[in-house]
């Protein structure tokens, strides 16, 4: 099981800020997860259609999208950060 967190317009498109999912074995990387999530609902599809617009954190560390998930407990998906 992975806890998924969504922020900013990703959260708005999906319609929830958080969900717990159990992806199939074939979902090995963050990029795989994004592609798989895109199929879950029209909201997910809108949020995850274009991975180039997305950034990710695995267990609260920023990672590249090709990072393997192996054992990740918490994955966050969001647009590039805009703080400060």
């Amino acid at each position, binding site marked *: 099981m992975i806890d998924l967190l969504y922020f*900013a317009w990703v959260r708005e498109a999906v319609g929830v800020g958080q969900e717990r999912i159990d992806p199939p074995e074939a979902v090995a990387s963050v990029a795989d997860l994004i592609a798989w999530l895109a199929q879950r609902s029209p909201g997910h599809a809108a949020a995850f259609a274009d991975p180039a617009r997305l950034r990710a954190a695995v267990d*609260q560390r920023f990672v590249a999208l090709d990072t393997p998930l192996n054992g990740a407990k918490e994955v966050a998906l*969001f647009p*590039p*950060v805009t*703080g*400060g």
Partner: protein
Amino acid sequence: MIRVSIDPAPIELAVELAALEERGAGGVASFTGVVRGDGGVTALELEHYPGMTEDALCMLAEQAMDRWSLLGVTILHRVGRMEVGERIVFIAAAAAHRREALDACAYLIDRLKTDAPFWKREWRGEAASWVEARASDEEAAGKW
């Protein structure tokens, strides 16, 4: 001494600066970001990633303490809704000499822009839009 805070409450400059001056520093450099009313913006809303944000800011502060000879670093970031003219972010660094304090302060605000999980939404009356990340921020952060 590192102080990091993510808070919906307003930022009080005088208290924060005095605390750093009491570290025995010769110089304290600070940067304060303020909500601008450009282009019809009436308010900003800041969202963040609770848990990760605190870690990211502490890590940034530690990196600055490792890189320069500092007596203290303070990073405060507001979250939630802020009106035009209100403070969003406050960075300060205290050091025996001015160069360390000034460089660390510039480093911290440049890196915060790319390394901390905050997202900014601009309000124009009832209409809201997410702010796009800027390539210039990536460049500024990459220079350090």
